[in-house]
């Protein structure tokens, strides 16, 4: 293994808690007459104001906001996109910063907001993200007019994630298979075993979203298999109906790119009572570990997750047995196996067996991504991390509705990943 520089993180200067969450449906806005014409301001505004409503606060109570967008120039024809939505959250005049870390943007938005409060500078901070991953703005026309972002165009745009001095010109494209390849090699799975495990992950993801109103997909692979004449859903998943798009990965293991926004409101824990008049039960941010590895580095997701996990465990002292629920940003579905393995949520090397036994579904004893994750809930790139935090908070409050997990959730671990490539491991816990 190559050398990776390490960081020791220190305790927050004061405790930080989540007090409100908001999230739009994840959708292809231009495909539906009722959503066609929605703009960045409306999506960000809805998510941000919903987070404030959730906490019972008004925009005047919020000191600062962070705005995330993975590809503002391509998707929205925006530079300084935080300014383009400023008046949609009722915060005219208040300061903000835009940040962009591709698929890890939302998770790092939580990191930024937590740090801003923990430092003592601000008491209450909104962190939100909006992305048009499917409907692109058209230069010269108001933002109600958009054009479809084809998968082929999207593929070309992902090249922008890698270094243009060297990495693009090493002519490597191992990214989609890198982590699955590591997992397969590390634990000696046969080609059929890793294939089945990745297929089963996709099956579970879709089962999780059937009744999730915010998810982009509401049809299971079980239904697709039945319609295609298969009695066994895995036979369908391993057939030509689900072609391989990489050396290991099939199309079912790839994100459903879409449009959407999400936001989270954070507050100094010592100020929650005063700000929310005792109406909100805070969820404390115990710690966040971060790492980053450029895309030419082998197994970057694995090694970056290890480093981020090491940091957050050292900071919080949390034992894996204390983790009740896991989220993994799985725009490549094998990420669930990596996050579960490294976080210790599932014993080393056992994750794929837990998946095959259905134990990682929302009704299982080791649920992962009960919201459906990137392949079924959808991937509005920057917004996805905050959408996961949204779902985690709902699960921890017992208010996730039809996709509420069966176990009590007090401690949640979220593993963010993306942006060519950032890793961000977050642990949050119900306060008291």
């Amino acid at each position, binding site marked *: 293994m190559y050398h990776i520089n390490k960081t020791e993180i220190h305790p927050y200067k004061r405790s930080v808690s989540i007090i409100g969450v908001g999230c739009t449906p994840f959708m292809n806005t231009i495909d539906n007459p009722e959503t066609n014409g929605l703009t960045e301001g409306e999506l960000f505004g809805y998510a941000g104001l919903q987070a404030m409503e959730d906490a019972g606060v008004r925009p005047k109570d919020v000191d600062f906001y962070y705005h995330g967008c993975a590809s503002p120039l391509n998707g929205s024809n925006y530079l300084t996109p935080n300014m383009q939505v400023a008046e949609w959250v009722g915060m005219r005049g208040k300061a903000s910063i835009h940040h962009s870390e591709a698929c890890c943007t939302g998770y790092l938005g939580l990191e930024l907001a937590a740090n801003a409060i923990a430092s003592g500078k601000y008491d209450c901070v909104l962190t939100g993200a909006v992305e048009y991953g499917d409907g692109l703005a058209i230069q010269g026309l108001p933002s109600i007019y958009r054009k479809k972002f084809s998968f082929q165009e999207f593929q070309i745009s992902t090249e922008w994630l890698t270094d243009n*001095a060297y990495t693009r010109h*090493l*002519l490597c494209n191992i990214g989609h298979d890198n982590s699955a390849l590591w997992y397969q*090699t590390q634990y000696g799975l046969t080609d059929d075993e890793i294939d089945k495990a990745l297929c089963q992950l996709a099956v579970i993801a879709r089962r999780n979203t059937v009744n999730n109103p915010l998810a982009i997909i509401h049809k299971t692979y079980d239904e697709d298999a039945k319609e295609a004449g298969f009695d066994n859903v895995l036979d369908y998943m391993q057939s030509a109906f689900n072609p391989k798009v*990489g050396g290991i990965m099939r199309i079912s293991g790839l994100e459903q790119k879409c449009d959407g926004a999400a936001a989270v409101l954070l507050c100094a824990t010592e100020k929650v009572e005063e700000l929310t008049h005792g109406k909100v039960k805070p969820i404390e941010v115990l710690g966040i570990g971060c790492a980053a590895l450029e*895309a030419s580095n*082998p197994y970057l997701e694995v090694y970056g997750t290890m480093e981020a996990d090491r940091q957050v465990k050292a900071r919080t002292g949390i034992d894996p047995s204390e983790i009740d629920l896991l989220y993994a940003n799985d725009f490549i579905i094998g990420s669930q196996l990596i996050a579960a393995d490294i976080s210790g949520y599932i014993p080393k090397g056992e994750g794929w067996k837990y998946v095959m036994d259905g134990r990682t579904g929302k009704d299982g004893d080791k649920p992962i991504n009960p919201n459906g994750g990137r392949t079924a809930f959808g991937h509005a790139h920057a917004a996805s991390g905050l959408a996961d935090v949204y779902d985690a908070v709902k699960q921890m409050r017992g208010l996730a509705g039809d996709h509420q997990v069966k176990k009590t959730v007090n401690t949640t671990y979220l593993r963010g990943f993306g942006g060519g490539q950032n890793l961000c491991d977050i642990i949050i816990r119900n306060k008291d």
Partner: protein
Amino acid sequence: MAVKLERIVKKYYDALEEGKVLSRVCKECGSTEWPPVMACNVCGCTDMEWKEISGEGVITNFVLPSVMSLKPQWKELEPYGYGVVQLKEGPEKNVMVMGLTKKNEKEVRANLPYPCHVKIVQRETPVGKYKTAVFELGPKE
């Protein structure tokens, strides 16, 4: 001050035109940076010296391209796979490995780490041409 503003990337590509693949070696800890950068990523030292790499390496893992990862713009380089390669000098990178096929996949996988060597190839694009370094299956001749 040891750090200098210099055209490291341009020097690398210029050397490729002359058939050489360059790295930079840390004078303090001896680590090799390939492709070359400004500071050592092991000890952080900025006192680096240029050195041509041996061109020898091993593939430690790989996948073969499929629908989404087979690039039409790289057709002249087929057959190829995507490999994790470690240079003799130490650096590990995700790189293209020419010569990997479905036919030899089993044999290569059974004999990992499998030897490979650097190969300089000409890239022709609609906007210009340049040489880059990829890898090829088998030991350096």
